[in-house]
């Protein structure tokens, strides 16, 4: 087997001493975590290690000795070789560096005291199989400690399933308390390992940390009040519930409440995914609020609200006028098509009456619109998503007449298609068996056949007129649906985009690791293989996939074919997803 030694880069130039680390169980590899410098008292080293073992829950041992040639320390080598008798071990590593050479030499001593594998360059009396059987993997201790391997394994118990690299990453991450020992600390032991450049905390950060707990408690209490309000019976009466499930503002409020519950729960996030979810939601929330405030600062300056109101009413008026003209065009001979005149007139008058109602409604509303807009605009301080949802709702309310036309047209068309299909079956001497869910043959009377054929003819000849109305209003409706869908998409994007994870990937790529990559360092003959281990960051697409906050857009959508089919048979289409139709 090949012996692998993971060696931290920062210990390359450490003074001579003892190697502290861990043998990875089941694998032939060792992770070096720190170097304890000479001079030390062996008893104190043992005490320190047991103390660290209980703190880090990592099986820390003395792996071997490390010698770095220096002036005036000639006798050190033999001394370090003798150390192996003091510390209990199964294998003892003797790493040494020679001045002027970049590579190390390594010698492994088994428990019985005889050298198992010699790698000294000059005395190669062992057989060739034992040659070159040591790999040095140089790693950056800080990056490995902070990084998180993906896919994330949450449960800690599955250590036997985890691979060698994962165990190595875990070992380094768990032995973080070992690295708190500062280089300049006064103490019996001197260690070399990675250490932070000082833990000087800014006073603001500390204050925020102190303040976050009471703030979280207050917000949780407010949330519970909100949930208590929501649980009133009046909100569960049928029309209120139905309307609130269709208004995107209410839906957005529900999402926000859910998110707050996740973020402000006083329980500390234990796992990596939980922490990332909290951070993502919090950062998206902050960005959302910031964008909303920007919008407000733009909106409430230079009297833009009244300008908007002044353009909105004429625009709605204009739309109604255009619709009126369209209807008048349809009531004549649209595009040279010859329609059934009586039905055409009836339908056209019906729709015209609707538009009349609509215009009077708009007139009634017009003096209040500015005020309504002013108050509604304030919701933007809750975030851009709220402003967008309100906009979507306003669009839905202002185009209510289009929706009505569409529903009438669709219902009429649906009835026609339904009647035609069943009469077509009658025409062929068949009928739909409801119990068996299939088409059966059936013998009809002469009268039934006569009436059925007559109705079929009438329906067939009236179909083009209804189909035309349906087509025109469906197109109008689709424009509105597309606009609303666009708003929904952007709201959803802000809600679910993992901003924190993306920022982490951009600024600290090693924090989200997909794996590792190795690079062969320039080697000198007669020394073991030296590899440099670097962290391979996760791809942006995988970051997005892994960390996005689940929202309703994550569920499978209707395909385009399904949409076209719905449109063809005259079923209603909505910008929002219908959950009730899925269940039954």
């Amino acid at each position: 087997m090949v012996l692998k030694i993971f060696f931290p880069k920062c210990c390359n130039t450490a003074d001579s001493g003892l190697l502290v680390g861990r043998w990875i169980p089941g694998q032939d590899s060792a992770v070096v975590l720190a170097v304890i410098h000479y001079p030390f008292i062996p008893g104190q080293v043992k005490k320190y290690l047991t103390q660290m073992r209980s703190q880090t829950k990592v099986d820390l041992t003395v792996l071997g000795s490390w010698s770095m040639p220096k002036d005036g320390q000639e006798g050190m080598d033999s001394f370090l070789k003798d150390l192996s008798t003091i510390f209990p071990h199964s294998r003892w590593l003797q790493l040494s560096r020679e001045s002027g050479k970049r590579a190390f030499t390594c010698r492994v001593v088994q428990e019985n005291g005889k050298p198992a594998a010699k790698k000294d360059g000059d005395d190669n009396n062992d057989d060739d199989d034992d040659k070159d059987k040591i790999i040095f993997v140089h790693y950056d201790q800080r990056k490995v400690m902070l990084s998180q391997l993906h896919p994330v394994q949450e449960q800690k118990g599955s250590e036997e399933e985890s691979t060698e690299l994962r165990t190595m990453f875990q070992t380094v991450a768990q032995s973080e308390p070992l690295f708190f020992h500062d280089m300049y600390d006064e103490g019996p032991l001197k260690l070399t390992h990675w250490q932070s450049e000082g833990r000087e905390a800014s006073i603001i950060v500390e204050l925020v940390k102190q303040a976050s707990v009471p703030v979280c408690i207050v917000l949780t209490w407010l949330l519970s009040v909100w949930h208590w309000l929501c649980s009133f019976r009046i909100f569960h009466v049928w029309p209120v519930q139905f309307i609130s499930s269709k208004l995107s503002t209410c839906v957005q409020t529900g999402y926000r409440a859910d998110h707050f519950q996740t973020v402000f729960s006083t329980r500390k996030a234990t796992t990596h995914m939980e922490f990332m979810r909290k951070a993502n939601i919090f950062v998206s929330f902050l960005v959302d609020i910031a964008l909303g405030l920007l919008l407000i600062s733009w909106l409430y300056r230079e009297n833009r609200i009244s300008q908007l109101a002044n353009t909105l009413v004429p625009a709605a008026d204009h739309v109604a006028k255009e619709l009126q003209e369209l209807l008048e065009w349809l009531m004549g001979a649209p595009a040279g098509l010859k329609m059934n005149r009586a039905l055409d007139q009836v339908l056209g008058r019906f729709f015209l009456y609707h538009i009349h109602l609509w215009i009077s409604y708009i007139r009634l509303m017009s003096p209040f619109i500015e005020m309504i807009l002013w108050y509604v605009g304030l919701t933007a301080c809750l975030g851009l998503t709220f402003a967008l949802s309100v906009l979507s709702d306003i669009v839905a309310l202002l185009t209510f007449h289009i929706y009505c036309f569409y529903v009438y047209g669709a219902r009429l068309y649906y009835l026609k298609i339904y009647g035609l299909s069943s009469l077509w079956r009658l025409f062929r001497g068949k009928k739909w068996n409801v119990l068996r869910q299939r088409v059966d043959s059936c013998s009809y009377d002469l009268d039934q056949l006569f009436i059925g054929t007559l109705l079929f003819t009438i329906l067939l000849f009236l179909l083009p007129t209804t189909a035309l109305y349906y087509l025109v209003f469906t197109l109008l409706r689709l424009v509105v649906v597309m606009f609303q869908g666009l708003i929904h998409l952007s709201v959803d994007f802000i809600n679910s985009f993992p901003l924190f994870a993306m920022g982490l990937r951009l600024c600290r790529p090693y924090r989200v690791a997909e794996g590792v990559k190795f690079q062969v360092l320039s080697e000198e003959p007669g020394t073991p293989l030296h590899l440099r281990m670097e962290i391979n960051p996760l791809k942006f697409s995988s970051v997005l996939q892994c960390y996005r906050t689940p929202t309703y857009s994550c569920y499978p959508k209707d395909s385009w074919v399904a949409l076209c089919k719905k449109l063809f048979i005259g079923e209603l289409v909505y910008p929002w997803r219908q959950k009730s139709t899925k269940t039954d």
Partner: protein
Amino acid sequence: MAEEGPFTDISGKPISLECQNYTPFCREFTVSSPKVSLLKVMGYTCSVWLLAYAVFFLTENTTVLSSAIMVTLVGMILHIHFVKVDQETLLIIGSLGIQLSSLYASGRESTTFIEMSKIKDIVINEAIYMQSIIYYLCILIKDPSEPDGVASVVPLFQSSKPRLNCLVRVYKSCQEIIAQSR
């Protein structure tokens, strides 16, 4: 180790295989395909520009010309950044793992490392590609649930597609190392 014999890819273009033996259990194979040929780039650019000029001649709209320049530039950048692979490297380290990396013409490098404990074997496989049958080298990944099963297959040298004689050389030395580490 110097390369032996001229190697070609499946369409007959010359490629070069470079083997580097660091130690008996660590080898690196680099398959490099020819660089982007200037003639080809010139050809594409000229054809797009001539087309644009023809359209410009008909419509007399100068935005056509500027958009043609933009299209060629953006197309070239996308091509060298995402499509054209200059070098593919297979680094096999006994008992540690196998690292695949491909170097794009723009200098972008994408690397994956597969640990030895996950690898079942390296084999040469046959595949039907358009109208012909080609050989390719692939790594079989172990299925963690059942010891004999293969969870997935990772093809090697996907963009340079060398012929069988080149694959056999890589295969033999890879097998040597895998056999050692078992």
